[in-house]
């Protein structure tokens, strides 16, 4: 009973993430790449994404604190972030990155600062959400169940 409940919870949670635009189909693609040979693929990729994103966000914050802001470098970093977020399907982060890049191109410090805040915010949300989703999955696995597709 408990397991079924958990599974339902997971499905609902996941659906809500799609509905609210946190995730897109690319995440489904990611999930379909996970199989017996590669049971932790999604977690691995997403962890890598977390690691990478945090590094990039830190670098971006630092860059914006500088006296002379290297917009070109920032643009490249945002491009990276955009690439990785689109690769894992972190939809909102990706969309924000597009706006962010425009500000970088326009060398708009205020816009960049605002965007960085937003990206950080969105990133925090998606991170928490994905982590709790993984937790839920882990619980199901621990309880001997399988992850519903």
């Amino acid at each position, binding site marked *: 009973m408990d397991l079924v409940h958990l599974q339902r919870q997971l499905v609902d949670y996941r659906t809500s993430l799609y509905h609210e635009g946190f995730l897109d189909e690319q995440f489904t*693609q990611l999930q*379909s790449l996970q199989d017996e040979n590669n049971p932790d*693929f999604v977690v691995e990729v997403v962890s*890598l994404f977390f690691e990478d994103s945090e590094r990039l966000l830190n670098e971006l914050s630092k860059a914006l604190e500088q006296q002379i802001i290297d917009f070109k470098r920032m643009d490249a970093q945002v491009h990276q972030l955009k*690439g990785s977020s*689109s690769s894992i399907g972190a939809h909102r982060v990706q969309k924000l990155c597009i706006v962010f890049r425009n500000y970088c191109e326009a060398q708009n410090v205020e816009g960049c600062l605002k965007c960085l805040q937003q990206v950080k915010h969105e990133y925090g949300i998606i991170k928490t959400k994905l982590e709790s989703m993984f937790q839920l999955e882990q619980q199901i696995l621990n309880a001997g169940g399988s992850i519903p597709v």
Partner: protein
Amino acid sequence: MLVHWILEEHRFEEERYGGDKRSISILDGIYDIWQEVPRRKKNVVVPSKRVEIDAEYDTVIYWKQRAMHLEKMLEASMQREQLLKEKLQESIKNLEKQSSPVEELSQILKRADNFLHFVLQTAPVVFGHQDKELRYRFIYNHFPSLQEEDILGKTDVEIFTGSGVKESQDFKKEVMDKGLPAKREITFETELFGSKTFLIYVEPVFSKAGETIGINYMGMDITDQVRKRERMIKIREEIAVQKAKETELNRTIHITEETMRAKQMLATMSHEIRSPLSGVVSMAEILATTKLDREQRQLLNVMLSSGDLVLQLINDILDLSKVESEVVKHVLQTAAASLQKILTLEGNVADDVPIEVIGDVLRIRQILTNLISNAIKFTHEGKVGVKLYVVPEPPFAKEGSQHGSDGSTANQTTTNVPKEETCTSTSQTSSDQRGFHGKKHEGSCQNRSQCEPGTPVMNGKIDVTEEQAELPETTVWIRCDVYDTGIGIPENALPTLFKKYMQVSADHARKYGGTGLGLAICKQLVELMGGRLTVSSRVHCGSTFTFILPYKVSLSCDHSDDSDDPNDLSDMDDHGDSDDDATNGFFQFQPLTLGSLFSSNGSSRTQKLLAHNIGHVNSHKINGFSENYCSFPTSNGQAKEMDLVEDACSVAEALEISSEPECSFSHSPDHDSESAICRGRRHHNDVNAENKVSTIDVSPTCSGTSREVDVKVKISEPQLPAERQGRSDSGSQSTLNISQEVSNSISKPKILLVEDNKINVLVTQSMMKQLGHTIDVVNNGVQAVRAVQCRSYDLVLMDVCMPVMDGLQATRLIRSFEETGNWDAAAKAGIERPSPSSDSLQPDCTPPKHIPIIAMTANALSESAEECFANGMDSFVSKPVTFQKLKECLEQYLP
């Protein structure tokens, strides 16, 4: 103006003196520049004489003396009075003459004014004083376009407008705020005085109390100086660029010289090797003319064919080393290009063309290769062909033939073979023929596969028509037409066609590449050999290049060998049949699929065709040609070749099928044996010695012994490993590994992913894995170019936006390599080419093929599809990549 100045001074004087001790402009009085008026000296005379009386006091004498004395004093006093009176009078007079102080002062001022005007009358300066509100209080401007009353009391911005005005006013304000003098260059662009640059010096002016009360400023027109300075900067930049160019040029020259030296060395070395080797081969040939038993002859045949092969290889190197950059490379790359078109290649040899002639093999091959590759290059559909026929001695040849035949003999190394005993001619290549004649004794299948079946008949013909009529050597003129159905040459371009570095147009050069040297060299070579190279062409219909060359015909062919051998007789019969066909001397290549023609065919068939086609001399020629071709399909179609290992039988069948239409000339009876041998050989090479026996079993008509097969293996071996090494990453697999590695990579095309984003790499890699592909991954354009340099890929997935070098540039560099056959563009971009050791023999012999490059774009503006296409990419996949997209892409680009 001056009055104003004075007033000003007075006004400032009134202000109280502050305690300011800074060394700056403080208005605390008139600067006493002028010398003071000299003061007059007072010349006052003071007489002071004491009265001295010697007489006793109060005596008569005393009083008398005293009276006299006083009288004198009175007299002197009166005189003095008179003098003073006069002096007074004089003084009064003088005083009257003296001018008034006001007058004096105004004179001084006038002089000062004159001086200032004199000094400043042509100076391009403006100076002035402005008060706290930056209103002009004083201005000096020698070339005023405004009256003083238009200026005084106004600020800059109130007076005139234009660029620079605001800047200068701001600058003045800044100086006033900071309280420190400063200089600045300001360029004005105003209606008032046009475009001028001023060096402006502004200093603050303080009151005695230390308050800032305004500024002094001085501006000097330095427009000319600024212009000169800018010109100087520009010139310096140009000089720097020029210098950089020179350095670059020097480096290129240096590299070229190095290359030339290396080539020269290679040529010398090849020559050194060739001389003793030809000694060995000649001796073996002589040996072949002696009485030998079957076994000995067999051994000798192996010796001869091996020796000949080595000789041939060295000759090729020699050839390469002599004309490398201009022609060979040219040929290779165009040969590769030809494989990407559907073209029919055909050859037509007239009956009367002797099967063996003597000429400068290398040069003739070079010419032919050049013309054919040219034809292929400029032909997009239709056919390219070669036609050979004998012509009467042309009028231009009277002295030319002499020359040509002399030149051709230089190449002969085995002429001392007794003529009546061998059927072969005297050129080096003849050993080929002899080898095969020898083999005829043993097994017919071997013969056919290696040599042109029609040969004996043709020989016979010569015997009849020419040989017996005249004695040993005669000259025959053969005309060779290389025709195509290509784009043709406009009439006005014909005169310059054979000139160096000339192409029909710059547009052609860009589109088709090439140096424009090929035809010039061809013409030169043909003429050096005593021939003529001509062309006729019609735009859009095609061109025909014709060269007529004199050859020597060796007539001492005896067929005793052939007639001795019953096997050979049967051979003859076979050929006889074929000879009766209408296809006599005609053959055709018709690529069915681009890969199958060459990969299934290998070199043996082309060799054979050529041997037939142009006889001895030309067999060499086209050997070279076919080798060029060969290296392409093997590198390209590695998978195909490898298939043989996996499923030798089925492929062998496929070979039989596919080989049929390629060569309309081939004789059906030969077919089985040929393909069987082909199969056997390939199988043998790939799997190595273990299967030797079985391969022999496979070939149904092969009556030869296992040694026969050995021969084959030996022949083909020197080629294969070299190619393989060139291709493989490490180039150092053991031969046994090859078959294994090979079977792994067969079904798996080599795919390169160029992507800097780790996550994208992970995802793409994983998707490809699920699609059954393992891929190589590099992280930027530079690495991508390196990867392509080291290994040939079947597909490249290329991110566009990357650090170090983006995907567009990397693609351009790879395409440039494919077009030109060299990595010069990459080297220019700073990518040194790694030099694999195995490459040294034939560095450019593998004609580059077109690698499909798929852009992976993030749909950003900077990564538009047009740009991808413009940079030579084949297609693009938008990011994020999905299964579906990848799959479609693979299906499209990996057949």
